[in-house]
């Protein structure tokens, strides 16, 4: 593959990662990272449990959206 194409694909991947970060798509990865780094004994939440817990917490703590 040519160098230009590689640069393009890595640029696109970077953009996709950025957009994902913006939408909060990487929240579970970050949670796992935190869980590992803080050395908890109990196993981390599974992906499904984590996302459920996340939206349920949003129910209890609504965040404003601006005009």
């Amino acid at each position, binding site marked *: 593959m040519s160098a230009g194409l590689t640069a393009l694909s890595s640029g696109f991947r970077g953009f996709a990662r950025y*957009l994902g970060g913006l939408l909060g798509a990487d929240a579970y990865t970050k949670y796992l990272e935190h869980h590992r780094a*803080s050395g908890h004994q109990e196993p981390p939440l599974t992906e499904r449990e984590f996302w*459920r817990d996340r939206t349920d917490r949003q129910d209890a703590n609504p965040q*404003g959206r601006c005009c």
Partner: protein
Amino acid sequence: MAGTPDDRNGSARREGAVTTDTTLPAAAVDENVREADERKWTPRKIALWAAIALLGGVAWFMLAIIRGETVNAIWFVFASVCTYLIAYRFYSKVIERYITRPDDRRATPAEYKADGKDYVRTDRNVLFGHHFAAIAGAGPLVGPVLAAQMGYLPGTIWIIIGVVLAGAVQDYLVMFFSMRRGGRSLGQMAREELGVVGGTAALIATLLIMVIIVAILALVVVNALGESPWGVFSVGMTIPIALFMGVYLRYLRPGKIMEVSIIGFVLLMAAIIGGGIVAETSWGAEIFTLDRVTIAWGIIIYGFIAAILPVWLLLAPRDYLSTFMKIGVIVMLAVAIIVVRPEITVPAFSEFASRDNGPVFPGALFPFLFVTIACGALSGFHALISSGTTPKLVEKERQTRFIGYGGMLMESFVAIMALVAAISIDRGLYFAMNSPAALTGGTVETAATWVNSLGLAGVNISPELLSQTAANVGEESIVSRTGGAPTLALGLAHIMQQFIGGTAMMAFWYHFAIMFEALFILTAVDAGTRVARFMLQDSIGNFIPKFKAHSWRPGAWLCTAIMVGAWGAVLLMGVTDPLGGINTLFPLFGIANQLLAAIALSVCLAIVAKRGTFKWLWIVALPLAFAAVVTITASFQKIFSPTPAVGYFANNAAFSNALADGKTEFGTAKTVAAMEAVVRNTAIQGWLSVIFVVLSIIVIATAVLATIRAFRSHAAGTPVTDTEDPARPSRVFAPAGLIPTPAERQLLAEWEKVPAERRFERAGHH
């Protein structure tokens, strides 16, 4: 973490109080190195800033001084961007150096309260986008459109200068002070800094302001969708699309947010195209052509259901869509304006700039231009976002300048682009679209006659142009489509069709724009209702403790119903108002929003004073004074003006007298019922203005008192109680701005060498 020797109390928060772990690389760039770097002016740097200043100067000259037949839209881009760059590089640095004084050796809440969920260190560039998506919505797209009544220059100056000296300052300071307090909300900070009276007034004002803001945003949507089967269908489809996305994320593929957002986006485009096809059919036109009162009821019922449904089902997925669209639309608009570079024929100052009887919104340039454009220049609502959510995600203290100040500059740029889009259409069309039906008569013939009778320079519109434009965008009529959204949509369609697709694509672009505005607004309506409901539950909970339990269903439903009822009533009032709705209510929206800004700046003033920064207090006092003068003057005119078009009570008296005289029609109200409606509406609007202004004066007064007290105790040498969280040493490092400086790169490289398990804070804190 508790128990480390560095965990000192607040009295030791001065610079240098935090000692970081010496076995790790530094958590901050050395003060002297950074200082030297900033003060060193290389020839390249000088040339760059001279070029930016020169280009900005030329652009302002083209906009403000040269009086040609037309002005090119590209000058708006250069004037704004160059001003933003200079303000960001110089003015926000002054604020950083003398007011906020961030210290990267201190850990942010995202570090010391890290829980992997709410408090998470977030990459600064991602957080910038995240914060921007939370603050920018339909507001900056609507206000500038309405303000174009007065010509392009007053609005342009206010959007650009306002954001630099007021809006961005507010956002930055609120974010920074909230971050220093573990991410506390504006309401909590107001109570701490201003005491019970100021805090309670701030809370009530915030609640009322949210009601008004949600109601008027909903009114914008109603006006855009009324009698528009295409719009009703495609916006209505966003609900099943969001529900599908919600179920998909909950049960099918949890966490696949990118994937579901792309699916949602494709479905959204299909809904827009499908809307055009459906609106063409006879059954489609019959089902989806709804009058504005029906749509208003639809939104009220929808608002109630959406606010009690679980977040995962509707709000969260639509939020993803909305964010996705927001970034896309703004990039698209910027690219289109730069590529197409439309010629603007609107004068710098229009005939209405020096009068107070404009048809789009009544009142003189001062103060009403400054309240009509709130979002984009100074928006108090941002203080609710800048406190609370974003501060819990900031990685390093120095990044708040980029995220807070920079994020608001970005919103201002959106407002400028909305202004450009609105003024790129024919001026006759602009007035025919934005004047209430009571003036235009509602048909193309009467509207054309009325617009031509205004005697505006260069305006001569034909009924054919009005019907042709409506046909181009796939609408029955564009006469009296008030609220700003349809005008922006037309302007955007006008620019985009020159870029992609030609006239054949105009209808698509128009409905694309209506769709994203509706999407932003519906998200704001839901989220606003939810936040207001929680605030109400907490307030009632002070008297009836049971209400504090947010999971208690009857309480939650009752409070939701109260909040929806409140904004629903204002919405219906606007929809049925014989005087037009938007023109009478929009000033109230701007006043409410800027009063909130005055409240937020008051809190900042008190905090800055308590930190002992008196020499630079004017940086906060200046925008506060301006916001206070503008909003209080506007409120007073709305309350006391003898001109019925401006003063609510003057209008009220005029209609009451007419009723007492036994008249059956008066002004634009053609029936007794309509006249009674005017009497009722003006009374409510008038009293709301009174309540707003009284509450704000209380808040500002308590803030000034707190400031004076701080000054006295500072002079007397007595310590002032500090409400910041105690300083804790940071164990991470990240650059402050978009591009890392050489010193930051060097430090980053040092951190790269630290083994991963040493880099992050270890356990023991829970």
